């Protein structure tokens, strides 16, 4: 490894020339090494490679480079260092499917090219003859990679650059997604643990209705998607609702969950809009009546597209927000440290999280306190409806706070519930950005806030949520790959032929995002419906504040109702997800990992003791114990080294224990205040000379 000294504060734009001189390269290059190849996953095919490529690392507070080979396959971009890797230490940190230098193609968010010190965003079409001296890759899991191409032969450099740009940025068809090439079989332990309910059979739904004592009707008429391709294969509706075929597959309440009192939560897409005002209103009345009939004849409805940000707002906010974490060097880090809090606030992301949680609390209050049925509506009924209904269920139903329960909920509301993952995650890099929006991530963010505030109420940890948020873009799994149940079935049915009619991939539902003439009509209609909403925003906030406070005064029951605190300091940044790759913030031997390690150590100690005692008890009966010993990754790391706070994601090579000293401090606190120039002891300064 070439140590290139600390660049840090001095130059704002570290250039390549300052890192390594060509003489050093030659020394480094001999004797020529044989090319190492990546371990390919079953079904993975190598497209192209280039050597030598310099990869920048930011460890140990100095910018360094590592030489190696860059590969592009149908699954990932991968870098293999010429140096020996520290297998032992990195093992604990290794993701099962990709390593620290692997970038699955679907993880790529943006690629920048540096041409003559100028940075340009690479779009697929732009790539023809020129190639940049350096490529910077921003990933969806917020990693930043920087590769230097100047030491590579021109044709190799061109080839790898074009290969990467093509496979990452060009709009592609679904069949090119690695999941369809992947031939690996699930490991035995993956097969054994199939306790997650997938909600792809009538039995799953019947079971769920039984569990929540719901008094609703299972609809099987859409088994072959005859009602609508946008509806789940199976779903549940209020018993009072009659013939479904007149609805054109839209605008009728779908059951989400039943409260123990008997009232229930329903979600609905808005009824089809016709030119006749009366039709819409009539339609809507039928819908509410059906919902109200469910229990004590009471219902409240809430149009989420009225009270929550649009999915475009969500996307814009997140785009701003994530920029603060895509840090390329130390200088950027400390510069952005100064205005950190106001930067976060300006993105509005935390506020959107707060609004969603707030809305969920309002719905919870209706169900829990007022015992009324609630119907939440939205244009399609598969975005914010999913967020709010899932959050409500997590707050009210402790089953969904278990790992299997949570996964079942994601299946129920999101996967079987037809959230358009393919469009929202923009897996296929479609240029038409209208439909892209991190709605599912927003949901995970909200769940994280709850986990953060009430960790003992959840069976899973924040690490689980972080990994789940990455898995959305992991093309090995098909869970988050489709737009609807119909989409999934039609694609998977043809999987072997892989020659799908192109219409199947066309996003069937983009209507909601177009501003067309019906928009103004809808606006008009909504005004009339306002009387049915839960009340003006001011009063709901005050009322739900009261609801929260009365809940807070009762002793906390982790198996009962769970509400989030939404005060300013309580809604926080998901540090683990967003800061895990930034070496400046890693605390070696600190963070919550340090406490968890202690807890795991003690737990395994207690379990060992228990085992010993049990063996003594049963020694007369001579019953051998076959249960496996607890082997935890935290423990396997041992007490030899301290874990960084970024565990288990980034492995910090900062072994020298040098502190990180902030740079550019004075700039952050230029106080023009007269106080600043005052002396400490203004009253009596006695000069003794």
């Amino acid at each position: 490894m070439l140590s290139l000294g600390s660049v840090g504060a001095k130059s704002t734009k570290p250039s390549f020339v300052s890192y390594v001189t060509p003489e050093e390269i030659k020394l480094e290059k001999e004797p020529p090494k044989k090319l190492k190849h990546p371990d390919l996953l079953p079904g993975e095919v190598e497209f192209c490679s280039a050597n030598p490529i310099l990869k920048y690392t930011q460890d140990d507070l100095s910018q360094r480079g590592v030489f190696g080979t860059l590969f592009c396959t149908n699954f990932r971009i991968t870098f293999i260092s010429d140096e020996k890797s520290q297998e032992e230490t990195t093992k604990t940190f290794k993701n099962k499917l990709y390593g620290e230098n692997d970038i699955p193609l679907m993880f790529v968010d943006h690629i920048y090219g540096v041409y003559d010190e100028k940075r340009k965003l690479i779009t697929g079409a732009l790539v023809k003859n020129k190639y940049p001296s350096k490529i910077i890759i921003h990933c969806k899991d917020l990693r930043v990679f920087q590769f230097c191409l100047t030491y590579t032969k021109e044709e190799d450099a061109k080839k790898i650059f074009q290969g990467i740009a093509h496979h990452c940025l060009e709009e592609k068809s679904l069949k090119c997604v690695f999941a369809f090439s992947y031939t690996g079989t699930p490991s035995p332990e993956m097969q054994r643990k199939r306790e997650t309910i997938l909600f792809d059979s009538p039995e799953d739904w019947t079971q769920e209705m039984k569990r929540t004592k719901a008094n609703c009707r299972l609809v099987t008429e859409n088994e072959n998607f005859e009602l609508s391709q946008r509806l789940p294969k199976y779903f549940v509706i209020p018993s009072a609702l009659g013939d479904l075929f007149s609805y054109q597959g839209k605008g009728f309440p779908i059951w989400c969950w039943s409260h123990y009192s008997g009232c229930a939560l329903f979600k609905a897409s808005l009824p089809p809009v016709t030119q006749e005002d009366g039709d819409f209103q009539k339609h809507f009345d039928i819908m509410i009546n059906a919902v109200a009939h469910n229990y004590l004849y009471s219902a409240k409805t809430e149009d989420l597209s009225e009270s929550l940000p649009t999915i475009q707002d969500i996307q814009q906010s997140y785009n701003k927000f994530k920029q603060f974490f895509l840090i390329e060097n130390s200088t950027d880090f400390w510069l952005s440290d100064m205005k950190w809090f106001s930067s976060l606030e300006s993105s509005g992301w935390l506020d959107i999280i707060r609004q969603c949680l707030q809305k969920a609390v309002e719905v919870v209050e209706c169900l829990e306190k007022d015992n009324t049925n609630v119907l939440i509506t939205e244009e399609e009924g598969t975005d914010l409806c999913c967020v709010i209904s899932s959050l409500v269920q997590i707050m009210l139903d402790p089953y969904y706070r278990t790992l299997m329960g949570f996964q079942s909920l994601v299946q129920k509301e999101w996967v079987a519930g037809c959230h358009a993952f393919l469009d929202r995650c923009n897996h296929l890099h479609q240029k038409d950005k209208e439909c892209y929006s991190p709605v599912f991530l927003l949901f995970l963010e909200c769940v994280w806030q709850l986990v953060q505030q009430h960790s003992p109420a959840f069976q899973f940890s924040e690490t689980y949520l972080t990994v789940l948020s990455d898995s959305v873009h992991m093309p090995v799994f098909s869970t988050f790959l489709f737009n609807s149940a119909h989409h999934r079935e039609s694609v998977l049915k043809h999987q072997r032929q892989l020659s799908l009619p192109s219409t199947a991939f066309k996003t069937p539902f983009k209507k909601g995002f177009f501003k067309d003439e019906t928009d103004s009509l809808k606006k008009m209609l909504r005004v009339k419906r306002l009387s049915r909403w839960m009340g003006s925003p001011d009063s709901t906030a005050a009322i739900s504040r009261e609801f929260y406070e009365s809940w807070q005064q009762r002793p906390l029951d982790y198996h009962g109702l769970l509400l989030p605190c939404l005060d300013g300091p309580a809604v926080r940044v998901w540090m683990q997800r967003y800061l895990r790759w930034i070496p400046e913030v890693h605390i070696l031997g600190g963070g919550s990992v340090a406490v968890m390690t202690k807890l795991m150590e003690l737990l395994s100690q207690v379990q060992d003791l228990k085992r010993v005692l049990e063996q003594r008890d049963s020694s007369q009966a001579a019953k051998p114990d076959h249960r496996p010993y607890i082997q935890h990754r935290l423990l396997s790391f041992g007490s030899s080294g301290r874990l960084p706070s970024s565990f288990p994601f980034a492995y910090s090579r900062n072994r020298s224990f040098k502190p990180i000293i902030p740079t550019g401090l004075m700039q952050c606190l230029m106080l023009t205040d007269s106080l600043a120039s005052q002396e400490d002891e203004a009253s009596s300064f006695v000069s003794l000379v």
Partner: protein
Amino acid sequence: MSLVEVEEANPVMASAPIAPYNSSPLGNSSSPNASRESLKMEPLADVAMLPGEERVIDKDIIYICPFNAAVKGKVFITNYRLYFKNTDSEMPVTLDVPLGVISRVEKMGGASSRGENSYGLEITCKQLFAFLSQEKYEENGWNVYEAMEEYRRQGVPNSEWRVTFINKNYELCDTYPTILVVPYKATDEDLKRVATFRSRCRIPVLSWFHKENHAVIMRCSQPLVGMSGKRNKDDERYLDLIREANGTTKLTIYDARPNVNAVANKATGGGYEGDDAYQNAELVFLDIHNIHVMRESLKKLKDIVYPNVEESHWLSSLESTHWLEHIKLVLSGAIQVADKVSSGSSVVVHCSDGWDRTAQLTSLSMLMLDSYYRTLRGFQVLLEKEWIGFGHKFASRIGHGDKNHADQDRSPIFVQFIDCVWQMTKQFPTAFEFNERLLVVILDHLYSCRFGTFLYNCESARESNNVRAKTVSLWSSVNSDTSLYINPFYTPESSRVLYPVASMRHLELWVTYYIRWNPRIQHQQQSPVEQRYKELLVLRDQYLKKLEELQLSDSTPSSTHLTNSSTPNAATPNQHITHLQTPF
């Protein structure tokens, strides 16, 4: 009506007493109602009073709770505290405010002046309760810190450093302690000459000695350079002696102030060590602002958390207070000091007078370098030494028994230091033997005047007022029940230097201190993880005991080497497991 504003983040609003003839329907209530009320008042008499505490006033009042509505109740004022308990409603409302904590009493409601009450409060403030307290504890906290003992622990005196008693009657410097450690080669005459060139005679003296590389942390006040740029050969030579002691090539002088302020100080006779005069030294400014800036910053912080916590603009409001930015500067200054010392170079730290920013920097860097100070005892020693001993002006900065609320001398420098310590404990949850509760208790009693620990400005004043004999030390109380303050996750690592990350990404507002009075902020007495950990500890000890009993009954000699440790940190788990598995 009067508003009682409380120092620290605990404002209280109380109304003036309601006279019995008041038109309030409740006050003129019929007899059955009244009798019920008087019954309810009975428990008030049971307020556990501290030994030496005496009741001064008790009256019916209405307390205007900033979070709920007005609450009717009864107020007690003793020579130590203001105590309020509501008499109606199901929800109990109590207030227990030590008088020392009250920073300002304000009259509200114009003409119907009921000022006598607030006036009474102010007078009471002056009778520092600590002198009347007759609390008894097993241990005398005044003995926690013995200067000689602490220097010996550090490895001083030795061939490079000597102890001098030149200040035993506070003749050299009245704000320094009696025992000082100075370079071996510096004579007492040298010290006297150096004193003439240092503000308030606070000469550079040793604070901490690195056992391995013999680098030291020295603390002092600014040199009296003045406008003319005066030089002092003795001071220059003295600093060179410090440098020579461990062969440091270049002595680093950390001036805590921003460069501009240090320059401005020349106008009033102060200044900094110039390059030409101190050739073997390099000067680094740490850009920490003065006491006035810090005071205003905390005031702004109070404004955004009281009475309601800002919701949607919380982060930008927080940023506008600059409080966390100041914390960042103090911490990063201390990191630089610790890093320099740990790399083998000696350092000198000063600000203007060397009792505010200097104390923050030396004590924080010592906390980073020396794991002893991270223990419950060690932390007490650190405070006694660097803050109380070296004359942080607690009386002036807090304003004990002082009626001038707007006093320019007041500043939350010590609060800021404790906040920095809290930030470190958050980043390293297993590195400190003490918990957050200790830090809160220290700050509570910084204001409460129940203990003598934080009274007066310096050791000489404490001695002449006989504080040790007449008051109880806070450490007597703390050390009489240490289990309250122990962090169960503590893992001692003696040689480890602790560098916190001084980035806004990690610094957070100490909600459980600054906003703890707000009922909406969740208060978990104990974090659930901590609770779980303690349960597991109990379970482990039960199993160990059971196993030991079984092995005793077996009377197998091979099993005798099983160690039963009841303390969480006595052995690493790996050792435990191997010990336990061998017999089977």
